[in-house]
């Protein structure tokens, strides 16, 4: 590949071609999964979040749910996919949103509107990853809503991530991860809150792709993640 690029004299054209080349690694990646954006979580889930299915991220406040969702969205954006975030309460961190790439469709809504909004986005088709952030929502969601959302996700091949404080999806989730965090402080000066250590427990991970990844999962049902302050 590099030799072929050397034949192109114009560096701008070479850069353009190299930008569009697809690596062998990417071609050989498992087609049934989407990268989580976190290597440890990819290993835990056997390649990433399942495509065309619902996945669940649960945990109490400050357990890293939002960071995991943002990492998945960023990974999808870096892969050139369209992404959407249904954000109950409009809590998006401006600094986290300023990454380069295809724009994120951000929908600020009330808890009662969230499922309907997610359903509309997924049914529109063309979105690789759609995140439904229900972290602080106080509402009861009927099973029929999850059935409809799962059906739409299957039809469109969309990865739907649902982040909430408790497990809500039950058997409707193809993959489920529970998070627990431990904060670390730096009292010297900004950033004030320096680091969040997170333990991610795999609760559910249906349709694993390869026997090797299945055995990895059995050996390793829990991984550690760390999120640093951006300040």
């Amino acid at each position: 590949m590099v030799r072929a690029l050397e034949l192109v004299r114009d560096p701008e054209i070479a850069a353009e071609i190299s930008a569009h080349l697809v690596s062998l690694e990417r071609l050989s990646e498992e087609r049934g999964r989407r990268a989580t954006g976190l290597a440890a979580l990819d290993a835990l889930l056997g390649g990433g979040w399942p495509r065309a299915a619902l996945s669940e991220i649960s945990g109490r406040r400050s357990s890293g749910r939002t960071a995991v969702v943002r990492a998945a969205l960023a990974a999808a954006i870096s892969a050139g996919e369209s992404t959407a975030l249904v954000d109950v309460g409009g809590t998006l961190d401006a600094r986290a949103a300023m990454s380069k790439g295809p724009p994120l469709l951000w929908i600020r809504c009330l808890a009662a509107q969230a499922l309907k909004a997610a359903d509309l986005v997924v049914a529109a088709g063309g979105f690789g990853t759609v995140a439904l952030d229900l972290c602080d929502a106080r509402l009861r969601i009927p099973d029929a809503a999850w059935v409809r959302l799962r059906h739409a996700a299957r039809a469109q091949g969309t990865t739907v991530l649902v982040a909430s404080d408790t497990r809500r999806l039950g058997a409707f989730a193809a993959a489920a991860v529970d998070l627990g965090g431990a904060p670390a402080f730096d009292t010297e000066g900004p950033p004030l809150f320096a680091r969040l250590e997170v333990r991610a427990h795999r609760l559910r991970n249906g349709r694993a792709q390869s026997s090797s990844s299945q055995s990895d999962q059995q050996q390793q049902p829990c991984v550690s993640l760390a999120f640093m302050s951006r300040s």
Partner: protein
Amino acid sequence: MRLACVHVPQLALQAALRRSPEARESPSALLTSVGKNRSRVTELDSRARSAGVRPGMTAAQASATCPGLRLFTATAADAEAGAAALADVGYAFAPRVERDGERIYFAADDLTRLYPQGDQAIAQAVQAHAARLGFGARVAIASTKGSARAATRAHELAVVPAERAGARAFLAPLPVHFFTDDAELCAAFRRWGTRTAGAVAALPTSAIALRLGPAGAAVARLARGEDDEPFLPQLPPDALEEAVELDYPVYELEPLAFVLRGLCDRALERLAGRSLACAGLTLRLTLDPRGLDVREIPVAAPTREAKILVELARLDLARRPPEAAVVGVHLIALPARVRATQLDILRPSGPAPNRLAATLARLAALVGPENVGTPAAVDSWREEAIAVKAYPTGGSSGGSSGAPATAQLVEEPGLCLRHRRPPEEIEVLMDRDGPAALRGAETTARILVAAGPYRLSGEWWRDTAEGGSWARDYWDVHASDGAVYRLHRDGRSGRFYLDGYYD
């Protein structure tokens, strides 16, 4: 140059029928006010005429003569909307159109590329499009305006030959009164025994001019197909308008939404004819007994779905109901072109632009247009400051956007602060080392670890009225409920606020 003439006879009546299409099945007539509390029939269709209704009758006389007669009252709103819709028949086929009362003219030369079958096919297409917009139109194509105008009077659909001899032969059998509205002139020609265009054309023009003046000479030229009337086309207006005056005041949202649906349907039909979509709405509601309620209804992405527009308008009306009953609705639709996109073979395709536009509009209807879009930076040091800009519905929305994306979060996953917008006022118990406990609407907890204060201030150059000049002391605190909160004390009021929590 080939010119198409579209003539809608009794335009005022047909414009009124556009808002009640079901009335087309029954005889109908238009009442026009001719004085205080007096109105007379001025226009009527063929069924009403054959039943014995005549112009000048009162409403009671007309109803008695024809029991099933539908009577409409002429309104300025209907007339304006009808004239604009007639012009849109032309704008569906040509970039410039000349408007002339019940007629429009436009150049039909370039249409032969779209309709290689010839002028007959063009005329049929124009007539079919006029029917879609609710008009029974007469269409003629000729080389001059006068010939086309005379042809529409004689035929429903006519193509006048391009060469002069052919045009003259086509016009020859037509009666003279098709070429002029001047009754005295027609009477003069009748006295001479010249009842057809062919007979007038055979007379020397100089002799006619000597006896009947320039008007008579113009009729003679028209009869020969030698029209020198200039074609004066105009560009389409920036916005497209539809209006209706209601027979009685409307107090409730549902009937108003029903009226809006009809307006949106008609507006979108006209836009579709010009290959455009609606990118925004302005509603002007006439209130009872007086007053005007003007509201802008933004549309997230250009759409051609009336349901979405009505839903947006309905949500806006539900959010801010009019102060009084509505007696008139004037809808202004902002036209926009729906762009086609070129997808990238090497990158994942994004949502289809048309479906995305409809979805964005539905989302805007659900959560409000200000809550749908893509996050944008704000020129402020306030941590919670963020804006929403319109989500691109073109090629850049999907994976087909030019440069490969580099998301910083992938390489270096960072902490996220879940902001409360606006920050929630809370009570904080302070001790010697800083915050010791906090109590808010959802949270009451002891503080285990507190880092801070970290002072931020800014925007002192702005007036207080603009929300400027702020100073805050920030703390990050680990509370006993397990969460890590960010809170601040306002430097001016001394009050504490919860900014959110890390997650």
